[in-house]
């Protein structure tokens, strides 16, 4: 159905709510890449088979990831009038039992993680209530999700739909107030008001540099050009995180909505999503979402009768780390080398195809609809005064539970690791952690009390960056970590700047010889000299921060490094 007016959106919303809490049974399987890796595909097939075999009237659908990656494959069951149940670690062998329990209206206690009685939409105007009347005893014994620590400390603004809706059905997205922000912007606000609202929210880029989004947008709005572009940076070349992937696999329409709002604000009619090529499933789902949005009239010409037109194209990149740098990304989009361009001119003045362009991180754009719905002032009160809003943090490394969670900025890192990751794996102690992907500093355990915000992490020699949180336990060889990260940069440097290219090559050699026990104090002094020059002379953030991990290991774990030096030389 073509959506021509705001009222049409309301009609589709009702259809979507019926899909989310049907009169029969709805079984959802967490089928993002994390789930697929743990066998969600087979569980999905098995569920479909069992449902048919046991003659249960149920619909089996694939949804995205709700953050509990360690408990994949996750299966959720919605029965009419009963709370929504979440089962974790569902193996193919237990699917038969699960379907039997659904038939009988029972609960599998050992697999059940939590229940959910109702789902509130973003605006709070729509409530999808699963449980009706008194909750049966078997259900009541399962903890309500809000009582779990995992959810208690989270604040789900951006990832609210992830794991709940089917990412391939636009109605389910609209059911939970999807595209309401776009409708509000197009019908009641002018572009300047949109930018003012984003500025008031104090939203900062979620990619790495943390540049204020409002400033970027207004610079692009003011720039002269016959065409303008919105580019969504979904490059995500960091080795240990897959938040963008998970995001596009779980809730692609939110990104589309954010991009359309950005387009309206800066005066662009075309948008590009630059996506890491490794994200096969994310690519399929975002392409499908774009087609659906176009068919519904939420993308294309004259959206909702406002006269505003916007279209989105997806471009797949090779997944190079440097292509997360905005000017290198623009080069890659144009089909040339993924090398950074000299700045100035900034992309807001002369970007893609020499036209004013706003390049925003995927998560930044996904935050925009919430700001539009709830207001910039409301958003600015979430988090801390200087770092507002929420941030999705992905935990990986030696944590007991690998997962991702959306937390308000300002939460302590210790709380994040303990609550969501349940500390280091196998009962070990946390020795070090790294925030913000490979460009961040490797910080020691005493710095766990740091708060997750832009300023604290920067002054500690790290960065908030993309929100990756890599945990290392007490058995980790820190020189090995430094070597790994230096190898990563040597591999990912584009090779344009002499200082970055040659510096990475030499740092790799030097840390290699220290690790093999051939190092001396001169080696360490040389690392410091090269690192200082790389930070000063490289063109882009990759070169400027390539030596940060190695320097932070030298600073925080000096004894361990000195222990590796040649005997008699220290």
């Amino acid at each position, binding site marked *: 159905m073509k959506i021509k007016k705001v009222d049409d959106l309301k009609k589709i919303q009702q259809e979507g709510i019926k899909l989310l809490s049907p009169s029969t049974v709805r079984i959802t399987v967490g089928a993002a890449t994390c789930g697929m890796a743990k066998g969600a595909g087979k569980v999905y097939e098995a569920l479909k088979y069992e449902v048919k075999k046991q003659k249960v009237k149920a619909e089996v659908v694939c949804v995205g990831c709700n953050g509990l990656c360690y408990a994949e494959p996750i299966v959720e069951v919605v029965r009419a009038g009963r709370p929504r149940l979440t089962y974790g670690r569902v193996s193919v062998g237990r699917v038969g039992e699960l379907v039997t329990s659904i038939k009988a209206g029972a609960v599998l206690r050992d697999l059940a993680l939590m229940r959910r009685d109702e789902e509130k939409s973003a605006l709070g105007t729509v409530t999808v209530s699963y449980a009706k009347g008194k909750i049966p005893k078997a259900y009541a014994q399962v903890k309500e999700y809000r009582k779990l620590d995992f959810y208690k400390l989270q604040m789900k603004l951006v990832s609210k739909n992830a794991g709940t809706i089917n990412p391939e059905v636009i109605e389910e997205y609209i059911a939970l107030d999807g595209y309401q922000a776009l409708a509000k912007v197009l019908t009641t606000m002018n572009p300047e008001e949109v930018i003012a609202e984003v500025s008031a929210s104090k939203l900062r880029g979620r990619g790495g540099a943390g540049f204020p989004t409002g400033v970027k947008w207004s610079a692009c709005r003011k720039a002269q050009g016959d065409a303008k572009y919105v580019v969504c940076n979904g490059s995500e070349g960091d080795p240990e995180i897959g938040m963008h992937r998970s995001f596009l696999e779980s809730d692609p329409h939110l990104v589309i909505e954010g991009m359309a709002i950005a387009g309206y604000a800066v005066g662009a009619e075309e948008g590009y999503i630059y996506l890491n090529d490794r994200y096969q499933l994310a690519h399929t789902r975002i392409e499908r979402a774009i087609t659906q949005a176009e068919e519904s009239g939420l993308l294309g010409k004259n959206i909702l009768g406002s006269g505003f037109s916007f279209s989105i194209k997806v471009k797949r990149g090779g997944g*190079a780390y440097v292509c997360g740098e905005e000017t290198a990304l623009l080069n890659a989009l144009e089909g040339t*080398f993924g090398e950074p361009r*000299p700045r*100035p001119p900034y992309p807001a003045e002369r970007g893609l195809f020499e036209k004013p362009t706003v390049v925003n991180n995927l998560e930044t754009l996904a935050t925009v609809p919430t700001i539009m719905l709830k207001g910039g002032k409301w958003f600015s009160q979430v988090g801390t005064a200087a770092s507002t809003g929420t941030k999705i943090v992905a935990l990986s490394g030696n944590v007991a539970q690998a997962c991702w969670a959306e937390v308000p900025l300002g939460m302590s890192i210790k709380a994040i690791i303990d609550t969501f990751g349940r500390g280091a794996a196998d009962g070990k102690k946390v020795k070090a952690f790294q925030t913000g992907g490979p460009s961040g500093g490797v910080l020691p355990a005493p710095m766990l009390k740091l708060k997750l915000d832009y300023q604290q992490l920067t002054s500690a020699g790290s960065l908030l960056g993309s929100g990756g949180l890599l945990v290392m336990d007490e058995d980790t060889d820190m020189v090995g970590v430094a070597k790994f990260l230096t190898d990563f940069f*040597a*591999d*990912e*440097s*584009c*090779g*344009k*700047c*002499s*200082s970055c*290219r*040659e*510096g*990475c*090559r*030499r740092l790799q*050699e*030097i840390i290699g*010889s220290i690790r093999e026990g051939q190092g*001396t104090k*001169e*080696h360490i002094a*040389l690392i410091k*000299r*090269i690192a*200082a*020059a790389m930070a*000063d*002379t*490289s*063109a882009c953030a990759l070169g400027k921060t390539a030596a940060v991990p190695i320097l932070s290991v030298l600073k925080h774990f000096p004894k361990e490094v000195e222990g590796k030096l040649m005997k008699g030389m220290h």
Partner: protein
Amino acid sequence: MVILTLDGKKVKVKEGATILEAARANGIEIPTLCSNEALKPYGACRLCIVEIRRGTSTIIDTSCTYPVEEGLEVKTASPRIIEGRKIVIELFLARSPNVKIIRKLADEYGIGESAREMGKDNEYCILCGLCVRACNEVVKAGAIQFAGKGLQKVVDSPFSQTAEDCVACGSCAFVCPTGIIKKTDFESTALCTPQGCEPTGPQRQLLNWKVEQKLRVCKKCGNAYAPEPHLDKIRQQQNLPNEFFDICPSCRKYPVVDEEKCLGCGGCMENCPCGALELDDKGGYEKKAHVYTQNCTACHSCELICPMVAIS
């Protein structure tokens, strides 16, 4: 005009210039390896870094890429800059210890050898990108490019095979600061097969790109003067007549008609590709050829066709 401070001195520079251009215009020397006036700024060698104070913040950036702005305060040789440059030179020295231009720079900055703890290579190419950019931006041939990423980066012909779009102009060899691109012209070569050898005439060879191209021989002086595909490319770009490059630049002059010899047959006029020749009435039935130099491209086709050898 824009006013900025260069090393404590207020200077006036025209808008749109880079800091490097401003410095050079004011007699301040900044070392560079990858900048060339004919090419767009690239910023690969990082030697031309300067300290730029803009408002309250100080940044370090390459002067070849940074456009001048009103009120900038630029330091071209502060201790931090010199230290940065020294290490960049040292890194270059470790990469290419046998390249003259790097040695010269190292001497200027008082660096003897790269640190002992650093590894050493013996690369001749310093990846300044001048050859690639000259080929793409000036010649517009696009025959060579960077290949590989990061530490594996090299300049190469497509897939390391013969560069098919190469017009053998030799611009790459001309701009290369290290002299690693080899351009050789042969007076005469032969193509030898088991069936026997066949002379191919004068040729130009660019070993790096595995290219051999014929050189055009001047129809007048007989010297081989430029590669055929390059001349063809210029001819197409400039929309010049086919015969334009039959004559080498040193033989090229506007034709002069010897009226004593001219029969007024009009053959030259018919044959002129640019309509620069016409027959003037000289009274009676007599007509003589006349050259209108404003249209003439000095292709000498008239000279070659004249039956009376009246045009020279």
